[in-house]
């Protein structure tokens, strides 16, 4: 038929799947051939809006059903370096103006800093630390100077100019920019800095005379330097709050003042007596490379940093991110190990096979940058988050997908509970009438009359006070089911009152069929279509109620996400304005889902009840 061609092919395919191939028949003939069910389906699928809603809902449903397998939820997940990140995949996208002339890169928590061969600084990624502080606002004096070295801390950046001048910008409220007096003295005498490092609110420089200077926030971090090591230090490796130093004699020491009992000072026994040539650190562990190419890892290694892989050739250099290490071997191949949550250790195959010559390797937080001989920068690791992160550094996408699974499950099961109760009581009331009817309808009146949300809140609070997250989920299902059956009950009762007078019931009675059987086997199937409409609409209502309860803190508790409690805490102007992705995405997908369900329900009602079509 001509009109068929105009339809979207998916719609046509869907129709053909459920209704069957359309054949050209005259209207009378067609009417006779169709079962009532088919007529309903055809009517249902005739509206474009309904088809759209159905497709959208199925897409969301599929995402929620399959999604949790790909975006696995980790309830204890937390990362202080990834808090409140906006959506985007720009954390490792080096600006075009810098491509081909990279001289140094520093990878910070969520951003990158780079110097080109002209000594100019470039920034990329999420450089905004707070509302006021943005690392992309490079001070004018730094722009003017010719920068040779860079370091990126958690919320501050350090740059070293050609003339030995140090610049700090970003968050400087916790003394990140206050140089010590010894440093200033040494600088006056003319120093030659060999290493520049920055970590959580503190920074370090090593000079060619073997002196180590550290400055920044002393309250959290051990940044004192033991006098006896001064003048012998070749390199430092900074963890989140501590550091270790490599001495000129090839030994590694914990040079700070809190060496006792620190996991960083208990080095592996096998390492004793060996000469160390390179050290690297993650946020809580240290790796050391010996002159015979062996790698040792010690410290607090809870995320797989200690699982050192087999190396195909001697290791040349090692580098550390937040939870992973990367090593460059003599044959130019690159190996990463440690935590792989953000694919930090999935080295691109060209690098893993040693096909490219590596001139520079820059590792920080969850990012890796490899500078090859032809000036190209190859990156792997965390690019960013599609929907941003929340106030604990958790991926919003993972939480939305998993929260949807919880909300939909709770909604579906509570609808089933409510329908079972409603059909049973409504059937009994409708068929038997009299005292049973009065009693049941009075109960329904009371239950339906109570304000829903306060009542559900008190049930959840009183019964749920000693339950864990999972049990509370079941509790909410039961509470919602037990409180929302009254509508179904009334519908079934009214339908049965109407159907009871029909001829087929009289016929069934005449045949001597038991009354209960008549209600549930003969009348109920005739009510089924309307019941389906009712279930669809109350599915949306139950999801809404669950999310409202969770939003108020009386539903499913955090950290288990649901579409309701994702929005918990979003009602202040800071979150609404600055961290918009934390409420816009959950709200949008949830709103979309309930709108679609309601549209499907309305469409179904129009198809089932021809009278409502005229309205």
């Amino acid at each position, binding site marked *: 038929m001509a009109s068929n061609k105009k339809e979207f092919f998916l719609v046509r395919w869907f129709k053909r799947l459920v209704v069957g191939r359309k054949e050209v028949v005259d209207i009378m003939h067609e009417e006779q051939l169709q079962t009532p069910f088919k007529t309903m389906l055809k009517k249902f699928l005739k509206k474009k809006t309904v088809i759209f809603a159905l497709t959208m809902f199925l897409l969301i449903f599929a995402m929620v059903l399959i999604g949790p397998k790909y975006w696995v939820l980790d309830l204890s997940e937390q990362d202080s370096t990834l808090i409140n990140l906006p959506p985007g995949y720009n954390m490792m996208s080096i600006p075009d103006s810098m491509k081909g002339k990279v001289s140094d890169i520093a990878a910070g928590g969520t951003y990158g800093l780079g110097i080109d061969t002209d000594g100019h600084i470039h920034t990329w990624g999420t450089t905004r630390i707070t509302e006021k502080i943005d690392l992309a606002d490079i001070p004018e004096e730094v722009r003017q100077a010719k920068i040779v070295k860079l370091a990126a801390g958690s919320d501050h950046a350090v740059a070293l100019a050609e003339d030995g001048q140090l610049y700090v910008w970003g968050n400087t409220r916790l003394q990140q920019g206050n140089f010590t007096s010894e440093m200033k003295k040494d600088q006056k005498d003319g120093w030659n800095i060999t290493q520049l490092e920055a970590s959580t609110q503190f920074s370090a420089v090593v000079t060619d005379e073997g002196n180590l200077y550290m400055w920044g926030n002393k309250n959290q971090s051990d940044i004192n330097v033991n006098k006896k090591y001064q003048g012998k230090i070749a390199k430092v490796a900074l963890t989140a709050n501590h550091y270790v130093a490599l001495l000129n004699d090839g030994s590694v020491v914990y040079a700070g003042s809190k060496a006792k009992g620190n996991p960083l000072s208990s080095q592996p026994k096998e390492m004793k007596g060996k000469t160390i040539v390179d050290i690297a650190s993650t946020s809580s562990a240290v790796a050391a490379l010996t002159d015979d190419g062996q790698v040792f890892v010690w410290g607090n290694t809870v995320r797989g940093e200690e699982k050192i892989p087999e190396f195909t050739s001697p290791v040349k250099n090692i580098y550390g991110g937040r939870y992973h290490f990367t090593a460059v071997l003599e044959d130019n191949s690159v190996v990463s190990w440690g935590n792989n949550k953000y694919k930090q250790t999935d080295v691109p195959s060209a690098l893993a096979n040693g096909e490219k010559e590596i001139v520079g390797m820059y590792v920080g937080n969850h990012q890796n940058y490899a500078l090859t001989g032809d000036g190209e920068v190859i990156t792997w690791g965390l690019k960013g988050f599609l929907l941003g992160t929340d106030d604990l550094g958790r991926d919003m996408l993972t939480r939305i997908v998993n929260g949807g699974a919880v909300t939909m499950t709770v909604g579906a099961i509570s609808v089933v509970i409510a329908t079972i109760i409603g059909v049973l009581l409504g059937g009994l009331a409708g068929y038997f009438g009299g005292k049973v009817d009065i009693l049941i309808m*009075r109960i329904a*009146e*009371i239950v339906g*009359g*109570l*304000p*829903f*949300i*306060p*009542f559900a*809140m*008190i*049930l959840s*609070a*009183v*019964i749920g*006070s000693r339950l864990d997250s999972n049990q509370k989920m079941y509790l909410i299902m039961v509470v919602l089911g037990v409180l929302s059956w009254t509508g179904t009950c009334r519908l079934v009762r009214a339908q049965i009152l109407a159907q009871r007078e029909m001829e087929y019931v009289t016929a069934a009675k005449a045949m001597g069929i038991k009354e209960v059987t008549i209600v549930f086997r003969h009348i109920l199937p005739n009510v089924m279509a309307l019941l389906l409409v009712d279930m669809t609409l109350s599915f*949306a209502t139950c999801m*809404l109620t669950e*999310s*409202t309860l969770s*939003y*108020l*803190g*009386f539903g499913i508790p955090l950290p288990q996400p649901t579409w*309701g409690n994702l*929005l918990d805490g*979003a*009602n*202040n*102007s800071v979150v*609404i*304005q600055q961290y*918009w992705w934390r*409420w816009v995405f959950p*709200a949008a997908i*949830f*709103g979309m889902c*309930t*709108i679609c*369900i*309601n*549209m499907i329900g*309305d469409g179904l009602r129009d198809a089932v009840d021809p009278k409502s079509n*005229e*309205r």
Partner: protein
Amino acid sequence: MGKYILKRCVYIVVVFLIVSFMMYMLYNLIPSDPARAELEPLRKDLKPDEYLMRYEALRAEMGLDDPLIIRYLRWMGLWTDTDGKTFNGLLQGNFGYSNFYKTDVVSTIISPMSNTIFINIFSTIAALGITIPLGIFCAVHKNGKFDQSTQVVTMLGYSIPIYIIALVFMFLFCVVWRIFPVMGMKTAGATYAPGSWEEFTDMLYHIALPVIVMTFGSLGGMTRYVRSAMIEALSMDYIRTARAKGLREKVVIYSHAWRNALLPIITSILGWFLGIFGGSVVIENTFSLSGMGKLYWIGLNNNDFELVLAIQMFYSIVSLVGALLIDISYGLVDPRVRVDK
């Protein structure tokens, strides 16, 4: 009619007793021991057997060892207090003692209750004032452009949870346009003479956004209901008769159709009215308004169950009396309905 109302009142009392007993039982499921809580500060100063004696005495004084039904009746004010003479319960106006606010429940409830009623009256008037004309217009101009777009908007209104609507409105009105304050009941730090005009306008300014959100949230369901009831009424034969008689369209719509459509609408207003009380829990929490919903939330979060119980009783009474009012107004609106048969 008088007899009917009397009958309904008896029914209300019975239902209220049942509901309150259920709530009281629920409340007693919580493991708590007020006697122990009261003696806890003295525990260190007392010898163990002395402590035990005092504890037992206090339990007896509080009547904690009596059967549940007696404690319930005592709380209700239908059983003599532990001294055996006086009645001291809900019926005597003793709503209990709030552990969290350290005062009588009555004095904690008064100001939030007036706030809630104040807000709800505003949003009720606004919502009815918008939905009824809108519903009638949509029904009369059925399937027109305006009707169809209203259908879409109202669909949004009842599909999206009220707190999401609140967030979106907050974003628009407080962040983008900066018309209204984000939360609170009055300007921080401002002092006005009690009962003055400035105090009143300041409060109006602060509750404007919550009222807008509540109104918007309740638009959806009501408009659809009014519309479908009106369409039903307009499709009746007597409308055709009225038109055939040559009556003006205004008379047909407002006098013939509307009065018949009112009946189902009144029923739905009840459910909606209760919904406002329930919904105000969300609204008051989102906007930090000190109303009944917020108080209820605070009470539940701080295990202040005497306060919670009192508010729950308030909700129950509102719903029961609301049902009665609806039934009576049925008879008033439609003379054909004889409620007192």
